[in-house]
């Protein structure tokens, strides 16, 4: 059996799963130390275990995203870029909001090295300048560094060599290499590496608190953390790559919704108190965003699910011209009419229509039927339009509804072939975490002209499989989940940017 845990901003949800069946589920309040909330959730699940054996625990968390957005718990970072004489015009962090850049500090160097798109060298790696940077890092007492290099997605050797040299000077330095995190796009990848380096210390603490909570409850099983793309990583890698968890919350919820409904291709609508998050599940995984993702005002190119966030939830305020986007949020039980409050919310509309029993229905009996009707029309039309916007093709697609606000939907939607509200929809996120898989990815520029397309794709898929296996996937369950090719304009020789992703089942320890 496996345990899935989702640590949200408000609640910590946990499920005990046997195969794909939910044996037990629990919801407790998230604690500021994270660990005691997890401990409470695990304690609540243990009775259901009934002598069975847990083989793995998978945790999803938005802790690191919140730390970055709020600028809390960030460590200063030594930023080293390899690529001179190119890239000097745009130094590291040149487009960061000043407040966040201040948290990172002012240690920024650009040294010689790096590659062209075809792997040719831009300049010899300047090992002396790197060693000198290492000594300066030691003198400053910095404990974390981010290293980026031009076209390190094609050849990571300069970043790797730089890390060796830095560690010779500062043996316990934590080094984040941009090639281990991001994609093509130097600034975005470097930003991601810097964010990661600034979160590494916090991450080690949080991982420790996970470990302690699990040990104190008396379980001795490996635990994993789910990442942005719905696959998992080991506790050790999350301590090194906290940024890869940035979107694990919505990803788990979408994956969970797909798995609960038994669908591999669907649109998932997660309706909460304030917003509805709408995303596409293709082949059982969330579709990823193709555009740069902004986190706390910083451009990144992380693997993130492509979500449309709509200002419509159970607590959305109702006015004559429409509903939302503002909401009474977690004050629903104080402000909504059905709870004796004075604010007309979306929840009041569905209760007044007799579609749900929440709070005291007698408190909304006075509402004008025409107004209720208009409200229901507006909710369904708005969702319909939003679902249609995220569709990947014109074919009718089933829609899976999860989240506490799922009661808002009571009618068929034109954009949906059917609407499914699965059992246990409230713990979809923890369920998604429990059943996360192991992945491996390749993203690099290849020359089709030199070896032909088939050969290039074979090479890329082989590498992706290898990376999935290295991450802990059982070899014969690994399949290629995604191949994307983007021809590079202007370049003869058939230069194409190729992205391949492989996923497989987590090997039992």
């Amino acid at each position, binding site marked *: 059996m496996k345990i899935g845990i989702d640590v949200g901003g408000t609640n910590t949800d946990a499920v005990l799963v046997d195969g794909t069946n939910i044996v037990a589920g629990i919801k407790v309040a998230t604690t500021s130390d994270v660990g005691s909330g997890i401990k409470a959730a695990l304690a609540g699940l243990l009775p259901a275990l009934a002598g069975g054996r847990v083989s793995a625990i998978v945790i999803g968390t938005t802790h690191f995203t919140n730390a970055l957005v709020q600028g809390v718990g960030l460590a200063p970072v030594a930023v080293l870029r390899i690529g001179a004489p190119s890239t000097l015009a745009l130094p590291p962090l040149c487009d960061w909001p000043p407040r966040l850049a201040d948290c990172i500090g002012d240690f920024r160097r650009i040294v010689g090295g790096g590659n062209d798109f075809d792997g040719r060298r831009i300049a010899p790696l300047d090992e002396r300048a790197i060693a000198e940077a290492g000594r300066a890092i030691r003198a400053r007492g910095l404990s974390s560094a981010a290293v980026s290099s031009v076209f390190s997605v094609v050849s990571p050797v300069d970043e790797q060599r730089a890390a060796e040299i830095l560690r010779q000077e500062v043996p316990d330095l934590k080094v984040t290499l941009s090639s281990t995190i991001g994609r093509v796009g130097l600034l975005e990848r470097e930003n991601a590496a810097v964010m990661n380096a600034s979160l590494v210390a916090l991450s080690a603490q949080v991982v420790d608190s996970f470990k302690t909570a699990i040990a104190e409850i008396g379980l001795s099983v490996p635990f994993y953390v789910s990442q942005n793309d719905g696959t998992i990583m080991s506790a050790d890698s999350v301590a090194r790559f906290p940024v890869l968890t940035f979107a694990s919350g919505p990803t788990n919820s979408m994956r969970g919704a797909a798995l609960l409904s038994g669908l591999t291709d669907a649109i998932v609508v997660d309706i909460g108190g304030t917003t509805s998050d709408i995303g596409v599940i293709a082949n059982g995984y969330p579709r990823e965003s193709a555009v740069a993702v902004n986190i706390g005002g910083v451009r990144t190119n992380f693997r993130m699910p492509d979500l449309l966030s709509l200002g419509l939830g159970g607590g959305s305020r109702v006015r004559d011209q429409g509903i939302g986007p503002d909401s009474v949020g977690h004050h629903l039980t104080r402000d909504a009419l059905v709870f004796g409050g004075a604010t007309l919310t979306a929840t009041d509309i569905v209760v007044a229509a007799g579609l749900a029993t929440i709070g005291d229905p007698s408190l909304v009996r006075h509402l004008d039927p025409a107004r209720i009707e208009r409200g229901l029309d507006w909710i369904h039309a708005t969702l319909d339009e939003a679902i249609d916007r995220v569709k990947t093709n014109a074919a009718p697609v089933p829609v899976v509804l999860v989240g506490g606000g799922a009661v808002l939907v009571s009618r068929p939607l034109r954009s949906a072939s059917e609407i499914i509200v699965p059992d246990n929809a409230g713990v979809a996120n923890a369920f998604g975490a429990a059943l996360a898989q192991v992945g491996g990815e390749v993203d690099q520029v290849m020359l089709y002209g030199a070896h032909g397309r088939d050969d290039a794709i074979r090479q890329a898929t082989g590498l992706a499989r290898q990376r999935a296996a290295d991450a802990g996937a059982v070899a014969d369950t690994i399949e290629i989940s995604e191949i994307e090719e983007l021809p590079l304009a*202007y370049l*003869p020789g058939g230069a194409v940017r190729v992205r391949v992703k492989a996923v497989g089942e987590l090997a039992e320890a």
Partner: protein
Amino acid sequence: MSSFFTRDQIADLAWGAAFLGAGGGGDPYIGSLLLRQAMLSVDQIRMISVDEVPEDALVIPNGMMGAPTVLIEKLPNGNEAATSLRRLEGVLGKTAYAVMPAEIGGLNALMPLALAAQLGLPVVDADGMGRAFPELQMSTFHVHDQRVAPAAITDENGSTVVIHADSDYEVERLARATVVAMGATCYLCCLPVSGAQLRISAVRGTLSAAIGIGRAVREARSRQVDPFAALIGYLRASPYYSSSYVLFDGKIVDLDRQTSGGFARGAVRIAAQPPQQGNMEILFQNENLVARHDGVVRAIVPDLITVVDRETAAPITTESLRYGQRVKVIGCSAAAVMRSAKALSIFGPRAFGLTDPFTPIEELDQQWASR
């Protein structure tokens, strides 16, 4: 009359340049950052009109050359443009009076301003096409027999290749090979022109037009009024883009891309937003070339076709088109100088392998209305 370009206009220029890129010209994000860095210690850049350039003064059009997808990885050194300019001045034995954009579409609207900031030179409010095009001979300079060569191309090491050739097509061929040898990004200074020559060939006022387009949409959005009305309104009041139309409103339902001959070619199909019916198909080669509504041509190169987000009116480059995007298609007229018989032989439909004849967008619109 001269005016001044200031830091707070960078975003407007980037927006307008993306629109005039007609799907190509590269995403101006990196260009905006480069210009912002170049203006850290420079408060303003003097923008002069073509008429202000003395008859015999030297003006050097310039811009980045290469693959937009490589530029986001291998960022510039920052001295490529100045080195190119100085070496070209050396070859010519003459000092530049001003710089100017070779093309106003995309990233290259911003780069000459960064160079102007670095060197303290004025920038001429004009370009050689009023849009973006993929090849060096595709400009109004070539139409008026003003030669691209000598052209100086510089990489991040400060290495420069100077091309002397009589034929602009030959310069294009050799420059393209140089770009690849330089790692697919480099800086080009070329087409040395005098004030007298500019008065014959330049497409005037396009820099301020790009800024104006960006400003019109930004102001409309901040006042929460229809950005499309503001955009079309601005274009209609401008000297070249005055025949402008929202050609289509719908959702991208098919996208076909391929690379051939070093270009990103392809087609996008857009289904109408109900209750409207029908489809629009747009063919592109880096830039959008022709828009057909249920098979009928509604706009064709060198007139401009730009796909924009249907909510925000933000321009979408051809490499960022995606299935499912809700878009509007905007078409507008090119400058009259771009529509002459000679101009059309250089960058009209046939130059891109299209068999449809060129018909001005305003005539196509009338034909469509009276179907």
